[in-house]
């Protein structure tokens, strides 16, 4: 029996997360501005100009930044929902970016090079995650540690590639040469930087939502995520195999994100290609409560935050680093809210 007050308190609770998150964001920004003696009005204007204030800001800054965050957010959400603590999206992204760059520069496929480079990125990401998946399946190695280690290995791999075999011809800068235009993803809107990768991200979000909702695989992934023991005994699910599938799919999406970033935004590979996208993606996925469609929204939210913060640093001198504080507080806020919601429930 649901009483009137219970229902009302339920809707009140649902409203709480976005309110708390928004308050945390504004609070931290104000604190940073005031502590640094920056002009508040000027800073917020810069933030607005950089994120939503103009068509260019929205299509060419916010959504361009949201693209890798959305894709990686989907990769993390898929893994977490399936009970796989993949914190290696960063490394899988780098593996994908490296593979796509190698092929884009090789010229294989001629004008159809994208049809080779992007699938290669997907494959590379899946393979990179498969190492952790295999270590888990074969040796019981915790994926938290293995994926973290593989992030570092991937980082050094990129470092080696852009100073070694893939370095630009003059051998001065630690980066590849710019890809030929046939290896550039098409733009979505003329005059804007938004590229086809964002369309892929949107379609993928829909596809994952449908998969989790309506397919046998989605059911198995969710069952394993909810409790491996119960899934094995009641649902006749082969848990190790399903978890391995989750590793592969999550890595494939993260690899795709890397491939899309180099062919859609940077047109080259270099060391700092990911400013921690893979870690921010954890906040993206958690704020979306691991729901694929909600990842679209949280991806835009964090994309706008980073785009606005970049403008705020450029135009008002407010340090960009506070973005990480906001991201961390969002995650901690979600945890605290979940705790307050579960209070009173009987814990196993």
């Amino acid at each position, binding site marked *: 029996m649901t009483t009137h007050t219970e229902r009302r308190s339920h809707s009140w609770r649902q409203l709480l997360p976005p309110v708390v998150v928004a308050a945390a964001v504004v609070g931290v920004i104000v604190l940073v501005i005031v502590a640094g003696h920056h002009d508040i009005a000027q800073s917020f204007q810069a933030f607005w100009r950089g994120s939503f204030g103009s068509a260019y800001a929205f299509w060419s800054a916010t959504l361009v930044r949201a693209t890798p965050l959305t894709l990686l957010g989907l990769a993390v959400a898929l893994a977490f929902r399936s009970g796989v603590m993949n914190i290696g999206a960063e490394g899988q992204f780098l593996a994908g970016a490296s593979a796509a760059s190698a092929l884009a520069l090789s010229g294989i496929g001629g004008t159809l090079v994208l049809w080779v480079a992007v699938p290669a990125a997907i494959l590379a990401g899946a393979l990179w995650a498969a190492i952790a998946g295999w270590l888990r399946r074969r040796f019981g190695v915790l994926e938290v540690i293995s994926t973290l280690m593989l992030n570092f290995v991937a980082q050094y791999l990129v470092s080696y590639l852009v100073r070694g075999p893939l370095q630009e011809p003059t051998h001065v800068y630690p980066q590849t040469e710019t890809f030929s235009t046939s290896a550039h993803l098409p733009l979505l809107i003329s005059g804007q930087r938004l590229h086809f990768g964002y369309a892929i991200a949107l379609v993928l979000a829909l596809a994952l939502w449908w998969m989790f909702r309506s397919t046998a695989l989605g059911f198995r992934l969710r069952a394993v995520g909810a409790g491996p023991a119960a899934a094995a005994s009641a649902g006749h699910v082969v848990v190790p195999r399903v978890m391995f599938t989750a590793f592969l799919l999550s890595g494939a999406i993260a690899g795709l994100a890397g491939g899309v970033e180099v062919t859609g935004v940077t047109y080259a590979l270099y060391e700092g290609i990911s400013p921690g996208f893979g870690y921010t993606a954890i906040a993206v996925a958690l704020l979306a409560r691991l729901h694929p469609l909600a990842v679209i929204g949280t991806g835009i939210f964090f994309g706008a935050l980073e785009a606005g913060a970049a403008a705020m640093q450029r135009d008002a001198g407010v340090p960009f680093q506070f973005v990480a*504080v906001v991201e961390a507080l969002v995650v901690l806020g979600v945890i605290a809210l979940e705790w307050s919601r579960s209070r009173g429930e009987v814990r196993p």
Partner: protein
Amino acid sequence: MTDAIAPFFEATVRTATPLAFAALGELVAERAGVINIGLEGTIIAGAFGGLVAAGAAGVGVGFLGAVVAGMFVAAIFAFFVVTLRADHIITGTAISMLGVGATGTLYRIFFGTTGAALETPTLAPLPIPLLHSIPWIGEALFGQPPITYLLYVIVPCLAWWLRRTGAGLALRAVGERPEAASAAGISPARVRWAALLFCGAMGGLGGGTLVLAQVGTFNEGISAGRGFIAIAIVVLGRWSAVGVSGAALLFGAASALQYFAQAMGWGIPYQFALALPYVLTLIALAGAGERAAAPAALGARG
């Protein structure tokens, strides 16, 4: 060749020192069943706290500031993980982001964008008579700042404490079978809080060592992944104090190897030397088989 060996050992020990502090802290946390991915945030908080405190009142107070800052960050982590029973990994990731972001922001606010020239007083090396003139390894082991020697005391004490004392047993019991420990009258929550505060103090010391005994300045992201390396070191060291100090030396050697290889004119890309310890950790993990050496309740909520 011999000309390059002594500096190689010296660089090995120097690089290993902050790693060993942090990893010994992580060891205690993990033995109590908590995996603290937030260690990175603890280290950088220690580095920044050390900088601020040393600037105000000298190197000695600087180290105290580093410990306090590290414990503060660890307390936030402990509150979420132990008191609210939140997921260790997600909380830890957030705490690392918080530490790196907050110190970067505060640094800009306190010292402006031109802070790169900022220097802090550092702890001078204190060569131990006779011992430091042992060929090859003397300078490396006994020509270091005094903070390094603190490790020579902590490692055997910690090893003994974990194995031979009642409190050490209680800590391990909480990490292996929290319900059983609870039934025996031990409060897992209290033990984990204490373990995490110790971990914070050690992580803070690691960060403080970096700034106050080695680099002599702070820069954004100065922890540079050392917190994650420390987690690898604990795994590679098979969750024992002696093993951890050996693994820390191995990681130190790997990063010193890049200079050694350069000095020797070996054509190995330095990235391979840097990536090697991570690969070794993965192999060690696989070799450990079915998490044999890891505390049974590691990472479990509650």
